[in-house]
């Protein structure tokens, strides 16, 4: 696939209609309509279990949809295999960074390049066919590695990187795959504050390179710092979209996060109650369990009001 677009350069890059997916009777994803503007940075937020990651998985072919269509660059790509979705330009990352631990950082990035001649079995044994391309890709990969601040780690095995560095590597690798739309699943999860700003800056630079960004995030600071548009999901549906300020003050969103209508957090609290009781009975304090539960709504109310 070449980098030339076969679609008009204006209009939304991604349009999804009626996409739904159920697990055992529960509608995990039920999106009636969603658009991603070309050249924008779009944040997808929502409480735990809202279906954000499942929606990502469905769009990128990692999970089957029960129904619905989605068009990318004007082409119907609904239900395509994961690798095919990536080839047309929808490249995604994962919630916990997935690198190839036994490959070097450089090879991790280089691997992502499209149309590698040496990746065909028929030419693999003839280095003269692919050697020149390999060298050029190596230079580009090194450049991207330096771009995310991993310049001095290029020869190290990716398995030796810290969690935050892996996130950076994933970003460089994603860019190497020459996407039109880069879909980042919680790009800040597990990244220490020192690397956060770097990562934010890099993501902000992407639209300038012709890459549209759609990302899932919990941290409202991050969301309001870099996104043009915020879309909020709850119980599989899209309940609000607009600027960060608009969405954060939307009563439906506040409801969803505080459990007013969704019951999501209440369910979770009910589920955890016996466990917490038991921990109490053992004489331990319950403060280790609450960080997960309160994290999202705590930051939500702080960061939502500009």
């Amino acid at each position, binding site marked *: 696939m070449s980098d030339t677009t076969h679609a008009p350069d204006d209009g939304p890059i991604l349009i999804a209609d009626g996409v739904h997916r159920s697990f*055992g009777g529960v509608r995990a994803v039920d999106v009636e309509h969603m658009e991603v503007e070309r050249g924008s940075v779009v944040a997808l937020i929502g409480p735990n279990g809202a279906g954000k990651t*499942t929606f990502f998985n469905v769009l990128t072919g*990692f999970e089957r949809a029960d129904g619905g269509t989605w068009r990318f660059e004007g082409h119907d790509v609904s239900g395509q295999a994961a690798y095919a979705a990536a080839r047309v330009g929808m490249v995604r990352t994962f919630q916990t960074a997935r690198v190839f631990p036994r490959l070097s950082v450089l090879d991790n990035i280089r691997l992502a390049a499209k149309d590698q001649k040496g990746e065909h079995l028929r030419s693999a044994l003839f280095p003269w066919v692919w050697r020149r391309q390999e060298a050029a890709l190596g230079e580009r990969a090194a450049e991207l590695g330096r771009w995310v601040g991993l310049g001095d780690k290029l020869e190290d095995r990716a398995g030796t990187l810290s969690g935050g560095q892996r996130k950076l590597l994933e970003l460089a690798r994603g860019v190497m795959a020459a996407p039109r739309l880069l879909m980042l699943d919680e790009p800040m999860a597990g990244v220490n504050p020192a690397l956060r700003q770097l990562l934010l800056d890099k993501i902000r630079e992407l639209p300038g390179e012709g890459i549209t960004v759609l990302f899932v995030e919990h941290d409202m600071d991050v969301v309001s710092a870099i996104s043009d548009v915020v879309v909020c999901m709850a119980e599989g549906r899209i309940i609000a979209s607009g600027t960060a300020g608009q969405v954060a003050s939307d009563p439906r969103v506040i409801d969803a996060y505080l459990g007013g209508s969704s019951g999501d957090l209440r369910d979770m609290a009910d589920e955890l109650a016996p466990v917490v009781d038991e921990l109490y009975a053992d004489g331990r304090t319950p403060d280790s369990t609450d960080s997960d539960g309160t994290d999202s709504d705590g930051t939500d109310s702080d960061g939502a009001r500009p």
Partner: protein
Amino acid sequence: MVLVALLALVASASLLSSLAGAQEPNPTAPTTTAPTTTAPTTTAPGGVTGPAITTTLTAGKGGEPIEGVVVTVSRDGEQIGRATSGPDGTLTIPVPESGQYQVTLDKKSLPDGVEVQKGAPSTLTPFVQASGSLPVVFRLTEAGQADSGGGPSDVERLTSLAASGIRFGLVIALAAVGLSLIFGTTGLTNFAHGELIAFGAIVTWYLNAPNGGLGLPLLVAAVGGILASGLFGASFELGVYRPLRRRGMPVVSQMVVSIGLAFALRYLFSIVFGQSPQQYAQYAAQSPTVSLGPVSLRPKDLVITAVAFACLIAIGLFLQRARLGTAIRAVSDNRDLSIASGIDDQRVILIVWVVAGALAGLSGIMLASSDSTSWNMGQRVLLVTFAAVVLGGLGTTFGAMVGGLVVGIVSDLSTFWLDADLKIVVALATLVVVLLIRPQGIFGVRTRTA
């Protein structure tokens, strides 16, 4: 650490065999019956025996040996050797060197009512290697077997095949349930499960056999065998798999470990137990059959079917109702959640291994009662057990039961139309087809992958 289980086994086995006193030295096992039993010697270089041709002549459903049949070996028209089959139906004719020979069965020497199967040759031309004896097979049949006039009717044959299929299926299901529980709680597909099956049968034989064993009544011996295989299952978990899980070994590697373990144990059995199949004492004799409508069964088969069925019901109820059963299901469903709710998953897994070992042992004892005990009996049914588990859906207990029944009935019924040696093909083909069409099994549920 890994060795512990094996050493314990060697020790107990050698103890048993010394208790047994002067056990008869094993005659070289006739290797014509099942090709798999020849494995230890086929690829061994530089064997000690000179070249020879051997055959075992049997006919009829039970494979009764035929005595007094004359077979000659010739080369380029010149007779080289000649022998008459003994009471066990075997005969061996030495040949001078490697090469191609004609082996001819003298049809006139066959007893009345036995003939060479239609279309099968009475002269074979095998190629003999420089060392070792080469088994050849003549296909004999009891005359009139093909005519429907004298024998049982098609309906009778089908119903009795179905009955034996149900029995085999239930017995396999016992082992399959354990295999499935282990998979459910640990994610491991235990390729050494066949050895748990054989272990139960073999221990029971040592407890039961009057010559070479303790001579206990079969029922008592069986209880001992089941207990021993439960402990054996526990030693798998404590000696092998738990330490491996602690080391963080990937499941795929654990499966390869289970293969290695199966290999070592199986051939250890062949050394300790010997290569010839043995029968349990009280069931060695043929007893009159019991008729149930159109089906006639040997009483022991009836007992086996009933006991297997009762055990499966009991294990089903145990999993549904008992506290421990609920804990096992919880660990299978969601290990993290069950740990969080206070279940000691390591203890549950250990119990699962004990239960799985005991069930596999019981299944082995039943297989040995209706046929015979042998060192590689576990290997022979391992794939069928897998078939049962996969058919029902890996990790679902009820599925394993139904899977066992389906595999047993389908494969036994297939012998109505196909040769008996293709039975296993039918069972495995069922498995492969299910894997291709519905990999989650009949009762498995597709799970969320995220």
